């Protein structure tokens, strides 16, 4: 029972990180009608910046803050240089152009940081465990991730739904020309939105950095998971992305943890040991297929998209 609870928390944590990545993707798609495959590269760059800045400042929090700012700048620079010419082109062009950007960023990271993976050490005050239930210790850092990501999700909601900037973003999404005609600086707005998406991806990357090894290509796996999330949630919908991300995170984690045992009930343990790893990594894709059959436009489709 405790194990299930612990795995649910792990799943929630993965889901929230996925949400941070997927939110940027879905925001950029919903507003600029832009498919950005290089979004995963921003996640990777966030993690690498964290590794460097944490080592440089000697403080995890300060390093993370610098990394976040740096990723935001890289994102805005990327938008101005490479993404802006792609607006209004068809999706194939986006896919191809940003596929090129992935190669570029992977190689750039290899050049700057070298091919070996990096580790980001946790400060002592985060590297502890707290008892959250009688008999269950849970790492403080993972709780910090969950709390931070939830706070950011809330902040994002407030930003988009309750502020003037958010109103402009929504206006730009629903009618670009009209918003432009009313005096909104659409170019600047797009750069800001792209930077916001980049910062969210960078935040996810830098929070993962102490848990995983920081390595080249780390963004690509999460990018594809984020795609699955936004397909399930409905492309362009932040609310859909949130719910789908939590769903995928829970499903993936719990599947990996319990599928071998469940399969052992119906087949030999040797067979279960063979099938379970393959099946659990396929499971979210199967769920996506089911969602597509039932609701081709995702669970929370955005109207008139």
């Amino acid at each position: 029972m405790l194990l299930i609870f612990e795995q649910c928390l792990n799943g929630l944590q993965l889901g929230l990180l996925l949400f941070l990545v997927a939110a940027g993707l879905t925001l950029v798609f919903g507003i600029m009608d832009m498919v950005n495959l290089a979004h995963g590269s921003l996640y990777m760059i966030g993690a690498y910046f964290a590794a460097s800045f944490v080592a440089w400042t000697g403080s995890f929090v300060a390093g993370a803050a610098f990394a976040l700012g740096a990723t935001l700048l890289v994102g805005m620079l990327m938008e101005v240089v490479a993404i802006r010419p792609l607006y209004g082109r068809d999706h194939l062009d986006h896919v191809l152009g940003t596929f090129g950007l992935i190669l570029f960023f992977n190689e750039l990271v290899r050049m700057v940081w070298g091919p070996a993976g990096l580790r980001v050490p946790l400060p002592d005050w985060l590297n502890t465990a707290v008892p959250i239930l009688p008999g269950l210790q849970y790492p403080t850092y993972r709780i910090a991730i969950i709390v931070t990501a939830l706070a950011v999700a809330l902040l994002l909601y407030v930003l988009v739904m309750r502020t003037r900037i958010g109103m402009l973003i929504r206006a730009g999404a629903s009618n670009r020309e009209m918003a432009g005609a009313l005096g909104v600086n659409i170019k600047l707005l797009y750069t800001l939105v792209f930077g916001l998406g980049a910062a969210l991806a960078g935040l996810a990357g830098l929070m993962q950095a102490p848990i995983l090894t920081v390595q080249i290509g780390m963004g690509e796996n999460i990018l594809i998971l984020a795609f699955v999330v936004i397909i399930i949630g409905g492309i362009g919908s932040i609310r859909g992305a949130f719910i789908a991300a939590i769903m995928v995170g829970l499903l993936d984690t719990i599947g990996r943890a319990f599928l071998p045992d469940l399969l052992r009930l119906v087949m030999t343990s040797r067979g279960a040991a063979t099938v379970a790893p393959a099946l659990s990594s396929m499971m979210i894709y199967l769920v996506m297929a089911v969602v597509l059959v039932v609701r081709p436009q995702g669970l929370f489709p955005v109207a008139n998209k």
Partner: protein
Amino acid sequence: MIGWLTPRNVVVAALLVFLILIPIYTAATGNPFLLTLFTRIVILAMAATSLNLILGYGGMVSFGHAVYLGIGGYAIGILAHEGLSSGFIQWPIAIAASALFALGVGALSLRTRGLYFIMITLAFAQLVYYFGVGLDRYGADDGMQLYQRSQFVDAISLSNRTLFYYLCLALLVASIYLVWRIVNSRFGLVIQGSRSNDRRMQAIGFPTYRYRLVCFVIAGTMCGLAGALLANHTEFVSPAMMHWTRSGDLIVMVVLGGMASTFGPLIGAIALMVLEESLPALIKLAAAPIVGEAATRVAEYWQIVLGPLFLLVVLFARGGINGLLESLERRRG
């Protein structure tokens, strides 16, 4: 001026002659490098040709096309591993497996459009990729070695590299011909009509979903055959064959060569692979006067040039190389 002597036709003819002559060069010099490289190029060109059918002519941006390379390859690998090395059994199974998978994926993904389609094809490819990674019996992550190539009758041995190369080349030419016949048939016109305006095609009374599905299956099957060839060529199958970057490479080949053009995928496959092979040397050459000794180190990072190159092709050369050749033709009047 003779009408058919256009820059594009000259380039295509020269390429074909070049492709035919490669084994002779290899036999003369005894250096198999070019033959090995071009066997691979020819096989990937066949995969790109199949992708061009759905992507170029059909407007179906499949971002998981390499999965059929994997399915075709694994069909050969698994059967060989289990002791069935007859090509008469292996190849039909490889083809049938890819066709069946394409039917399933197509049936689901063609219900959707645009970005959804791109991502769904990608996700299904990932599904199979992870399935391959999970196949402990067949090497999982690391893949597995093929102990022998597919066995046909004794007279035709695929282990003969020259013969195998010509077989691949013949199948490539056959695929290009087949795609050309398809797109110029009534069926192909429906597919292209549905790319331009699907709703209108439906209004005229064409069940476009079925047409597109059949087209999707043809492309998947053709690519599955290319996968069977690839497995025989490298004598090795691994999940990396169907990694999503491989699917991206196939799209690059199609766009670089020229979408919806008969020989575009072939030109694109040659251009991309030759570029990948020669870029390190080119960078070394260009960097040597500036940084001197360090040029060798700089050349290691050739992908930093390749990536932005894709972006430039997208931005400034939409028709790819084929389009450039054709505009050359128009300028000449």
